[in-house]
């Protein structure tokens, strides 16, 4: 007795998601897939005496893979990203927790805005701000000396420390909000259930809140890590020439029109980011209830 659903409507409904995805596909093809194709192509060219030579060779790849200098660069890049991610998480998680536990929604909005504020400031302005704060005569060193914690000013800027501080600062919102979102999705009665079963604050946190917010942590780490991998301006302005991360090398190569090296370096960055994403997605599946 049941009549089949009208076909035409069904067809249109099935096509609708694809139609909506079309602009995104077009953009991706034009701005991502095509450039990657030409990247691959340029990577096999040669660069000699300031000139691009269009023949097929693995020379650039070979240099990139076997030259100890580039090993050091890649390792440094990964190290900076890892340290920044760790610090951003270490600062961001308690911040997200505090934001979540705040009783007043008005306060929550204000603190949310403050946490978001680094993103509102241009990277150049922010970097100069940090140079001023972290300089030998800057506010941070002054305060530490006044407190008697150190005798001489610490070298906080124009090195790895300055880069790490500034990057952790600006990635904070990208870390706090995914974690905060995971926390607000928690059923509040779960924490009550844990306490009802005899768990104090710490046990409740360790055995209920933390495991259930792990997906938020993984998402946050993924964002911070991939953003840190690609950071260019901050290492350039605050690294004092001592933080030679891969994006800087790629940037320098492009300004020398060394397209083969820029292409290979760019692909290496992409690969590292992809590995990070795949690994964290693995973790995420593991963390699922």
């Amino acid at each position: 007795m049941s009549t089949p659903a009208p076909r035409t409507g069904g067809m249109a409904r099935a096509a609708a998601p694809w139609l909506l995805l079309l602009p995104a596909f077009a953009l991706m093809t034009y701005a991502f897939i095509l450039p990657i194709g030409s990247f691959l192509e340029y990577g096999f060219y040669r660069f000699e005496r300031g000139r691009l030579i269009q023949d097929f060779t693995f020379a650039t790849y070979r240099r990139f893979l076997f030259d100890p200098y580039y090993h050091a660069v890649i390792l440094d890049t990964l190290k900076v990203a890892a340290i920044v991610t760790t610090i951003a998480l270490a600062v961001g998680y308690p911040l997200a927790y505090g934001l979540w536990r705040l009783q007043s929604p008005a306060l929550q909005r204000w603190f949310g805005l403050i946490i978001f504020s680094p993103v509102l400031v241009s990277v150049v302005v922010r970097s100069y701000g940090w140079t001023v704060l972290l300089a030998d005569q800057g506010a941070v060193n002054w305060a530490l000396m006044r407190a008697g914690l150190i005798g001489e000013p610490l070298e906080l800027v124009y090195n790895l420390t300055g880069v790490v501080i500034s990057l952790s600062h600006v990635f904070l919102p990208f870390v706090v909000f995914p974690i905060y979102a995971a926390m607000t999705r928690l059923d509040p009665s779960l924490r009550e259930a844990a306490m009802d079963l005899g768990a104090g604050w710490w046990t409740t946190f360790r055995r209920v809140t933390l495991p259930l917010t792990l997906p938020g942590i993984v998402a946050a780490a993924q964002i911070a890590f991939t953003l840190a991998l690609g950071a260019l301006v901050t290492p350039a302005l605050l690294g004092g020439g001592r933080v030679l991360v891969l994006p800087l090398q790629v940037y320098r190569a492009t300004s020398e029109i060394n397209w083969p090296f820029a292409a290979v370096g760019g692909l290496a960055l992409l690969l590292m980011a992809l590995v990070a994403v795949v690994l964290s997605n693995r973790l995420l599946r593991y963390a699922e209830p």
Partner: protein
Amino acid sequence: MRQGVELEAVSKTFRGFRAVDGVSFRIPEGSFFSLLGPSGCGKSTTLRMLSGFEDPDSGRIWIGDQVMNGVPAYRRPTNMVFQRWALFPHMTAYENVAFGPSVARVPRADRRRQVMEALALVGLTDFADRKPRQLSGGQMQRVALARALVNKPRVLLLDEPLGALDLKLRLQMQGELKRIQESVGATFVYVTHDQGEALTMSDQVAIMRDGRIEQIGAPHEVYDAPATRFVASFLGNANLLPVTVQGIDGQAAKVALGGLVFEARVGQTPAAGTGVVALRYEAVRIGAAAEGQPVRTRGRILEASFAGSSVHYVVAAEPGFTLTVEDRHRIDEPPWPRGTLVDLGWHGAAARLFPEAG
């Protein structure tokens, strides 16, 4: 030496709103006590003050001979079965139940035995390794029960634990809850808006309304002798008939309903010369069964609705009022058709007089 659970004039206000207003009651150790009332009347808040999730603004809460005010949830001899069960989604049924014992540092071997015993008590031994999302509502409900009972609480608190189950499962769980309560011997405090649940399982029922307790008693007591008009209309189905009061003598009142004058019990003395008589649908006899009843009249059937085990009639009584009657359905006796003239009768004790308002 105090025993059981006791509340003394306990109040709780949320931003100027009195959710619980001077509630007092005493629950004997090891009994099944229900808080029954419409949604929003303060049942959960009362329960949460017992569990330690809310602290009362005033009044005292005793469990045994100890005052519980200010004692945090994790140090109270209570455990709770939550409204939506609140199982830890990242843990198996076994791990959920083992949570309490492991927090209490019960040695591993004992822990395993206790957890398996608790799972056996609720009939879930075969589902120990399932995560909550792989369990049905009824099974999650049982895990929540086992997770609370494994800690051997002195008082088990249950907040509408059957509310999310379908009717058949709910009826089955009512029986099981009662059986479990008798076998573990703990005091059960059960919150529900479902009178069927409260009346079936409880030793005592407290009926709540707007943050206050209207009446406490055994199920049959509150049902047969409601103390307020609210209780009379909330429990079961009652006709509320406006009457003029002709005289009151102790527990007996002489009331007039249209042209019919009869005797009723006094539930609560009305202030003026008018009041309301509550008369349960099933207390009114109809047809031949009306014969010999102390209060007699006649009426014409306006509506008849058949509900399987019973038939509901709306009857226009001759003295000039309308009455709903519930009659038992007997086999081979079809309901009377509309327009039939029938005899009506009831016992004076079944009619209770209350003030008009309230």
